[in-house]
């Protein structure tokens, strides 16, 4: 090494500057089953705790819950049935309503806008009460008396906000299609009806699917509201079971069982919705 010439290794050098590594981006959703497992763990723990609390001579907590399980499952099935029916009715009414909102006739546009906004702004429970109390309990159709049971009235009550939300969904999806599509089709001499049905709406279906599925999940977790107006679904039956057993240590296990049941049904839907959203957004 010669003196006077600095060793290259000793020359002052600006080392590369790295900003502190950003916190690892959190996953968009939790790993698949961990939250269901967490809830199930809560349930299991609560059963254990309740067991510890229950007095001697009383049947085991799990056995009690098992005794009530078939009835509660039936109730839950009614929740699901109500959600399917309300979704079907709401979509069948809401899609045409949404198309009316983009009509060229001002009265049709204004009328459908008003109906949509009215039912979007109404609290679901108030609509449920309204339908339960004010819809007739039977109608005569073509000479026959058709009874309208309570669960059907509440289904209709739930389908009204669904209808309004579907209408908004449809309108939003149509408006999100770039104006160039309308122009190009117009320039090719398509009629307005042809443009809507052959070009715009097919493109809308993909965009509408994730929010539509999201709406279904919201509807499903709203079905226990029908217990407030007297429908015998899972929530009502759980409360009835708790009242009949009259054991305070059953409160947490049974309510958390209900939460777990809904979670198990809804979480896959929300995962699927998020996955679809991602897939359709790439286009």
């Amino acid at each position, binding site marked *: 090494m010669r003196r006077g010439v600095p060793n290259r290794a000793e020359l002052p050098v600006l080392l590369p500057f790295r900003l502190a590594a950003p916190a690892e981006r959190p996953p968009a959703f939790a790993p698949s089953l961990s939250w269901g497992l967490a809830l199930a763990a809560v349930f299991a723990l609560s059963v254990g705790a309740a067991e510890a609390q229950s007095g001697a001579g009383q049947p085991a907590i799990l056995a009690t819950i098992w005794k009530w399980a078939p009835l509660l499952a039936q109730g839950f099935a009614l929740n699901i049935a109500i959600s399917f029916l309300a979704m079907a009715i709401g979509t069948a009414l809401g899609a045409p309503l949404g198309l009316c909102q983009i009509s060229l006739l001002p009265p049709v546009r204004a009328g459908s806008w008003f109906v949509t906004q009215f039912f979007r702004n109404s609290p679901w429970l108030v609509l449920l009460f309204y339908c339960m109390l004010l819809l007739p309990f039977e109608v005569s159709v073509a000479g026959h008396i058709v009874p309208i049971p309570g669960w059907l009235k509440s289904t209709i009550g739930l389908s009204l906000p669904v209808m309004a939300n579907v209408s908004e969904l449809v309108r939003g999806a149509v408006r999100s299609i*770039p104006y*160039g*599509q309308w*122009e*190009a*089709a*117009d*320039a*090719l*001499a*398509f*009629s307005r009806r*042809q443009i809507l049905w*052959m*070009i715009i709406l*097919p*493109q809308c279906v993909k965009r509408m699917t994730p929010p539509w599925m999201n709406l279904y999940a919201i509807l499903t977790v709203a079905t226990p509201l029908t217990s407030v107006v007297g429908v015998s679904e899972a929530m009502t039956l759980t409360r009835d079971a708790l009242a009949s057993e009259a054991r305070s240590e059953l409160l947490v296990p049974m309510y958390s069982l209900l939460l777990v049941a809904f979670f198990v049904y809804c979480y896959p839907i929300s995962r699927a919705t998020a996955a679809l959203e991602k897939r359709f957004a790439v*286009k």
Partner: protein
Amino acid sequence: MSPAGHVLRTQAPLIHIADVHKSFGKTEVLKGVSLDVAKGEVICVIGPSGSGKSTLLRCINALVPIDRGSIVVDGQEVNDPRLDKLKLRRKVGMVFQQYNLFPHKTALQNVMMAPVHVLKQDAKEVEARARRLIAKVRLEGKEEFYPGELSGGQQQRVAIARSLAMNPEIMLFDEVTAALDPETVKEVLVTIRELAEEGMTCAIVTHEMGFAREVADHIYFTDRGVIVEHGAPKEFFTGAKDPRTRQFLSQIL
């Protein structure tokens, strides 16, 4: 250039635009535009952004209604409220800057859709014609591709084929290369030039001066809603008279 290098000016013009005014809200976009396009003629409209060029094109095929003045296309008054818009749009084809292909249909379906559903022509015939047109724009083999799988230049050529499928007499091109990468611009310009050489009446809004010089029979320069100057390409590019024109050309060339 149109065939034989000159244009028949003895017949009535195919497109006759007289003193057209158009406002969007409070902004007046066209302030009295007049021009004529003869059959087989190729005109280019150039000018700064906001000068009304795209609006003018859209007025020709009645996508945008005019406030005042008159546009007559092949004897039909476009401003007439009783105008059969569909009949007009079968004669006039339009290609847009953003291609606007229908993303949920393949290239072939895009080209076939309008003749089958609007003109109600036989599907087999239309398919054969569509395949010929796709080959004509040099996209043979890409018929089953979706627009999302094609490059910008390819999509634009499909858009041209789609408009040609309606057998129009007039083609309008609205800055069709503005959204393309420089490499793909040429393939689209070649396609348009071929069309012009085959005798199609074209109105082209473009920023490509070299292309305009080559292809056009007549050039119009618009600024702030009026036609400032116009002329044959040779005189226009070398001997522009109006100072606004000269300033624009000095910025571009």
